[in-house]
């Protein structure tokens, strides 16, 4: 009986044909082409243990933060916005970090007086809830962005960090050097090579690429200061026109069209005399005029920039550029006077050697 059943089973034709064989092969090849997932061979017990450990850790963390924050919720919630594929990180204080696909932000600390985020890659748009008692820092490579309450964007690339401010003010620091950015301003730090504190910044010059500032070591990595690029956000339309002029000027400078860059900048100065980016536009115009060889025009532009009292690196750079432009225009006495003003204002400034040379009568 048993032998008969075995014989019948053996005699049964295997329902496997060319069609099934080809279909299975197609699926196998698709699966082989797809990125491999890690094998799912973690024993159930280990997984259960890991889940329990994570739950305990989360509870412990929550309790610790609860104590630190004296009753305020401190945990962050993460959500995916399906319409934009952004990952939205909501902090308990109401601040929001919208991470573009591929971006990565890690919460380092959320405390009553200090919030620290570490951004290692990609573009993140921050909306920070104002809180003067709390220090809010975004760290990206060796760049720290200190915030009081503002909207800004940080773009981290392997060798550069860009910061663009939409609203409010941020202070950006890299190795002891600090730059304050106002709404509409942006800055790019190159993060490779020597530290910021030991170098002189280089600001993009028209057409011929970045030029080394006097007194700066040869090996200094450049720091580019420029207006914020138009951001892919609807809320930026309010500030789009001045930005468009700045972008137009940037593009013209990049293509060597210095006349076009100067035209765009003058248009901006004429149409938006009260815009927050005017000081920056004056500064860039000064650089463009210097590159064109119009040193008198450059002097005027840098003077106008300094007159607007820009803070941070822009103010320092503008004063040094003004002095240098005066020197190039043939006004040695005026250049020396401005150089002395620079040294008095920025005794350890990055242009001090160049300014000293102007005072000493060297060119």
């Amino acid at each position, binding site marked *: 009986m*048993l032998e008969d059943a075995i014989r*019948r089973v053996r005699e049964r034709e295997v*329902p*496997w044909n*060319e069609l099934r064989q080809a279909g299975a092969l197609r699926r*196998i090849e698709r*699966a*082989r082409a797809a990125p491999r997932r890690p094998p799912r061979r973690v024993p159930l017990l280990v997984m259960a243990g890991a889940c329990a450990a994570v739950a305990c850790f989360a509870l412990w963390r929550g309790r610790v933060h609860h104590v630190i924050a004296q009753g305020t919720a401190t945990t962050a919630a993460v959500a995916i916005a399906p319409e934009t594929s952004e990952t939205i990180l909501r902090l308990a204080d109401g601040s929001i970090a919208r991470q573009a696909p591929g971006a990565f932000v890690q919460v380092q600390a959320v405390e009553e007086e200090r919030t620290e985020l570490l951004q290692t890659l990609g573009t993140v748009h921050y909306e920070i809830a104002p809180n003067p008692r709390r220090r809010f820092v975004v760290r990206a490579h060796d760049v720290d962005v200190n915030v009081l309450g503002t909207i800004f964007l940080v773009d981290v690339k392997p060798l550069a960090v860009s910061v663009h401010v939409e609203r409010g003010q941020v202070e950006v620091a890299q190795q002891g050097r600090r730059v304050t950015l106002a709404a509409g301003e942006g800055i790019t730090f190159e993060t490779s090579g020597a530290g910021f504190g030991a170098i002189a910044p280089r600001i993009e010059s028209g057409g011929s690429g970045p030029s080394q500032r006097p007194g700066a070591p040869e090996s200094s990595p450049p720091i580019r200061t420029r207006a914020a690029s138009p951001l892919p956000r609807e809320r930026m339309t309010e500030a789009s026109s001045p930005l468009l002029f700045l972008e137009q000027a940037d593009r013209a400078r990049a293509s060597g069209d210095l006349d076009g860059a100067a035209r765009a900048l003058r248009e901006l100065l004429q149409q938006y005399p009260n815009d927050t980016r005017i000081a920056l536009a004056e500064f860039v115009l000064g650089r463009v005029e210097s590159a064109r060889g119009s040193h008198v025009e450059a002097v005027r532009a840098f003077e106008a920039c300094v007159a607007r009292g820009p803070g941070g690196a822009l103010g320092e750079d503008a004063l040094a550029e003004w002095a240098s432009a005066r020197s190039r225009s043939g006004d040695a006495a005026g250049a020396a006077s401005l150089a002395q003003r620079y040294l008095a204002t920025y005794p350890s400034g990055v242009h001090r050697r160049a300014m000293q040379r102007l005072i000493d009568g060297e060119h």
Partner: protein
Amino acid sequence: MAQPVPQQIHNDSEEVLLAQLASGSSQAFVEVYRRYARYVATIGFRLLGDDSELDDLVQETFMQVSAGIDGLRDPKGFRSWLATIAVRCIWRRRAQRRRRQLLRKSLGVLGLSRSDPADRRPVDDLYEQLDRVPERCRLPWLMHRVMGETLPETAAACGVSLTTAKRRIAEAEARLERSRDA
């Protein structure tokens, strides 16, 4: 339709073919699949008792072949190694089936699992009786008695020693005999 395989690979010895497969050759993989897909399907059909999961089984087995070919020390043992992978996959699928059956029973959902024409009756009866044999005995018994694999091949495919394979086959045989006598 299966992809055409170049004549060169078509004629290669198994050793050369497996060496090419280990070096990541897609053509070698297709040729290995062409040579052994039916063998895996046969193991699956005989051990599972039906063809409902045959395609998935063949796919899963060859995916594991693709991932683990680097670990194959002796190319001569490829067929046995392939059978071992297939049996492991069947083992998992059988376990899933048992859980599903248990769930169906607990929910009171019981339906016909297969047709019952007169000429299939002995076959269906045998698989029903085999369902009552422990899995550790069922698979070696099927590999040896139905698939016709030798005892060492069966032991290797089931991942047990020869003695254990013999003992389990004998245990399955005894259970089946008792079941039939009853």
